[in-house]
């Protein structure tokens, strides 16, 4: 290890690689059970050991962000705040505080238990969105897919009318009607999709 005195006479370790900049990073290599310490400046350390850097946690961890958002936005009186922290999911026993700490849910029912608080979280994670608009499973999914198809046909119908292709528009109208009747009878279960 090369040490030099700086202008104030303090010993400084110089980077082993470039032998110019002061060493700031210590890399410990385990070599056949022997620990070998190397001292590099930040520039050399980055270029020499791009993957050996193991973070104890994610560089920017989700749970940190979550906790910060909550404390930022919900400047509530202490009493209320404490109340919020003891909302507990009755299925897995996780509190909302645990959800914030881990950055993960304990079970599907957590979504139900923490429902009022969640839009605030999702808004930030998903570009302001808080409601699912995609695919859905099972019968519900088929119903949603059907509705989407009807909507698409209606749009086509409007285009057809705009270009005065009335025959085409009438065909599309009938098609949409057929699908709508399927939706009211075939869908089976009475779940409200809206």
């Amino acid at each position, binding site marked *: 290890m090369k040490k030099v005195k700086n202008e104030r006479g303090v010993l400084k370790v110089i980077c082993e690689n470039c032998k110019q900049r002061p060493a700031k990073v210590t890399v410990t*290599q385990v*070599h*056949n059970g022997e620990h070998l310490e190397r001292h590099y400046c930040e520039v050399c350390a*980055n270029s020499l050991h*791009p*993957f050996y850097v193991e973070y104890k946690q994610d*560089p920017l961890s*989700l749970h940190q962000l*979550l906790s910060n958002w909550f404390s930022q936005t919900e400047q509530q009186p202490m009493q209320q705040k404490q109340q919020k922290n003891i909302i507990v999911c009755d*299925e*897995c026993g*996780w509190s909302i505080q645990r959800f914030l700490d*881990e*950055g*993960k*849910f*304990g*079970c*599907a029912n957590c*979504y*139900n238990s923490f*429902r009022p608080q*969640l839009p605030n*979280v*999702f808004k930030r*994670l*998903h*570009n*302001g*969105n*808080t*409601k*699912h*608009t*995609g*695919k*859905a*499973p*099972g019968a*519900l*999914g088929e119903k949603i897919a059907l509705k989407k198809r009807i909507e698409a046909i209606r749009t086509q119908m409007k285009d057809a009318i705009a270009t005065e292709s009335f025959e085409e528009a009438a065909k599309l109208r009938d098609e949409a009607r057929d699908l709508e009747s399927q939706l009211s009878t075939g869908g089976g279960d009475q779940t409200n*999709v809206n």
Partner: protein
Amino acid sequence: MSIEHFLDNSISSWMAGVGQHSDIVMSTRIRLARNLNGYRFPLAFTEDEAHKIDQSVSATLLDASDELDMQFSSIHIKDVSELSRQVLVEKHLISPKLANSPMTGSVLLSNDESVSVMVNEEDHIRIQCLFPGLQIQEAYAQADVLDRVLDKELPYAFDEQFGYLTSCPTNTGTGLRASVMMHLPALTMTKQMNRIVTIISRLGMVVRGIYGEGSEALGNVYQVSNQTTLGKSEEDILADLQSITEQIIQKEREARDALLKHSANTLEDRLYRSLGTLSFARIMATDEAARCLSDVRLGIDMGLIEDVDVSILNECMVFMQPGFLQKYAGTSLNTSERDMFRAKLLRERLQKEEKQKTKGEESE
């Protein structure tokens, strides 16, 4: 099919170097996260729950192999040695999280490795489809078929407001992560990547180095994927990724043309030096190997280097990783032994190619 098939072979179907824009887009990956009602998520569940989930998901997929026209091999993670797990991770067939999980979990792999379904990773079910080149729609269609098969038999956790319920709130909604792996050497050389990363992050997408979180990607390979999963339909997510990918491809091509126009000689020199290093070096660390492979790949794409096959470079990127090397060596290796063994394998692989080429020319 035995697990050895997946471990011994460093070639996967995505490496074929086919598909649209395959000179820049190496592969397309679709991942769907799903959970079952009635069981807690893997962070909170018991071993008993883990076992039941594993059994029912595996059985459903194995039963559906006719319907899917796809044979699956089921691999229980607990039955596999640590080194073998590392190899599966290096091939991107399982995640480090699944490899290190203390609970019962497994992976179901299609024989060509284009489909892998992880059970009890962060979510109960993770469907993954990996296609060569830019094939976003095709890969999603495959994942969607598997999703429907599982949906028919198993009760998915779903909420009308929040969509598919996942362990991590960043996946809630569609549970869909679509990503493309891109080789972007010219954009990196011309120092444009940082700017691109910033712009893309404003559009609900992320760019990261494939082998790490740092901005400097190993081998100039970047992964572009959607960040938003809630409030956007699957179609929109896929269409947005497609359009961003096409724009990046366009920019990379422009940068390549510019390099060729302004510094063709320097560029050709650098690329051939890398080919020389790969062909003759005796000690080779991962980052140097990745950089040289990237250079040679660029040389092939630009028509400067002619007698090397791209699929070999894809394969080299995989087998030069520590787990694979040790699997090949049949013994554990320390860092410097690994660097020597890596250099040896790369040399042999490139020479083998050279010989086949000359043989082919003689017989013609």
